[in-house]
């Protein structure tokens, strides 16, 4: 049980760490995707089947493509090489951002009231396999998740939606600066 968790955690963290340290961007991206798989495995371990599959579907299926596209299409501009990796300002800003994100996430976790799980409720997992044939409880069904999202967390959902839309529009605006001359006549 715990061994599985340890395995998953080591896998996730190791892939993430190696992804950070590699020089080859494509390898990093692929390892990042591997670590997302680790996270999905963790969700599975915790019995959150829906979230696990959604994680794979969204992150591995879609976000990874965006990442790979970004890596492949971005031109290696001179700006990258000018900024030294170990400049103090960068390090400080990175630390501040990191602490802020950690603080927000930690606060969210601490403020969440988890339903009490009886030990029996934890699904029996064959150690190491990660996928169980039958998951009985806690059955947070799709219907429940939908209800939660549409009632309790409707505002958050809306805000996230707006944020993503704005980001999308921003990306479109950035990408559309191609100018009219390249507008290709299409049938």
């Amino acid at each position, binding site marked *: 049980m715990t061994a599985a968790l340890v395995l998953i955690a080591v896998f996730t963290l190791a892939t993430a760490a190696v992804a950070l340290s590699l020089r080859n961007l*494509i*390898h990093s991206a*692929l390892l990042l*995707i591997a670590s997302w798989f680790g996270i*999905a495995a963790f969700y599975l371990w915790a019995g959150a*089947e*829906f979230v696990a*599959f*959604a*994680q*794979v*579907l969204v992150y*591995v*299926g*879609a976000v*990874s*493509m*965006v990442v*790979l*596209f970004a890596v*492949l299409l971005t031109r290696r501009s001179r700006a990258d090489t000018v900024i030294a990796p170990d400049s103090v300002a960068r390090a400080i800003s990175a630390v501040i951002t990191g602490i802020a994100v950690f603080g927000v996430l930690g606060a969210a976790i601490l403020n969440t009231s988890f339903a009490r799980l009886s030990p029996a409720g934890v699904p029996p997992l064959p150690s190491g396999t990660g*996928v169980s*044939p*039958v*998951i009985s409880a806690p*059955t947070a*069904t*799709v*219907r429940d998740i939908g209800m939660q999202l549409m009632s309790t967390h409707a505002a958050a959902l809306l805000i996230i939606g707006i944020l993503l839309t704005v980001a999308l529009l921003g990306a479109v605006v950035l990408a559309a600066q191609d100018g009219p001359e390249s507008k290709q006549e*299409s*049938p």
Partner: protein
Amino acid sequence: MTLSGPLTFLLQLPLASAAGAADAFLERLPLVARDWVTSWLPEPWRWLVNSLLSIAVILSVFGLLFAYVTLAERKILGRIQNRPGPNRTPIPFTKLRFFGLAQPFADGVKSLTKEDVVPRGADHLLHFLAPVVLLAFSILTFAVIPYGRHLVPVELNAGVLYFFAAGAATELAVFMAGWASRNKYSLLAAMRALAQLISYELPLLLAWVPVVLVAGSLSTTEIVAAQAGWQFNVIPHWHVFTPWGAAGFAIFMIAALAESNRSPFDLPEAESELIAGHLTEYSGFKYALFFMAEYFGMIALSGMAITLFLGGWHAPSPYVEFIPSYVWFMGKLSALLLGFIWIRATFPRLRMDQLTRFAWKFLVPLALINLGNAAFWSLSFHWSGPFQILRWLISVLVVVGPFVLLGRKLSAGVAPRVYRYAV
């Protein structure tokens, strides 16, 4: 769905009950066989052997199916193109040809014995991993499809989601193959594959959401169960026989064509443009693995389409229910695969920008409208009598109207032309 009257009741009387069909010997045959095998083993081992057995059966059945789908594809393509197709491979050491039935094995032996060429500049690890990852994920998708009344390898609450999550990882392998090959054509193919995946993932997902909405579950078995029963004993309650279901099925199949890189969406391996796309630098068995994974993907997507829209393993009429459910499943699967082959034989390939435009400007809006249509359908389930006709009318209109309008927009500027002559 609920239009039941005395007539239906009378028609249903002489038929065997569903329970009777479920207990038929042929229906239970796979289970009986499995239990017979496991009965030789001590109790603690049985669950493990049970799972291993189902894995082995799936792999062998679909492996064989893959082999013969390739043969069928070549033969049907041949017949459509007015040639006999491969028919000369004999049974080894004999002169018996049997229409070339040994061809897939000859192909297999050939690809196994071929030299595995890896380009010098290639990323060897990724070049090796790509077919493995692809095949692994394609096989994973087989886990949740209900092949028969009692034949579901794994029952998951979020089975449909699992299926598409596993399927989504396959294009990653295509990208790995394209990128690792160190070939410009392969790289272009990889980019195309990524763009194609992003474009068609959305209509593919949106196409089955209505099914989940109506069936109220993400579990494949429950979705199949929701399609049980017949109208007047002739029209099955399959989702495809509703306006939203028909539209959803069409969208799903088009997106499935794109997801499995089949013509007319076979751009990542467009042979006239990109040689063999991401497969350009693959040879021998790795190539065969790619090939196999591609067909597995096609088979799995067809299986999912059957589960979601074509009533799963249900017989089309109670009069033919004596035929076991898995036979019905395989029959439907063959029909869909035949459709894939037929389409491949007929249609030319789209261009990249047309491909993405078709997805974003046509399929996605249609799928979204279809979602609303399904919502309307499920909210109006209690309408009856003349309202039932109204319900059908509205629903059909919601399908056909946007199709015509969007189709007109999509094909704007593209029309047959009239030519003038100089005498």
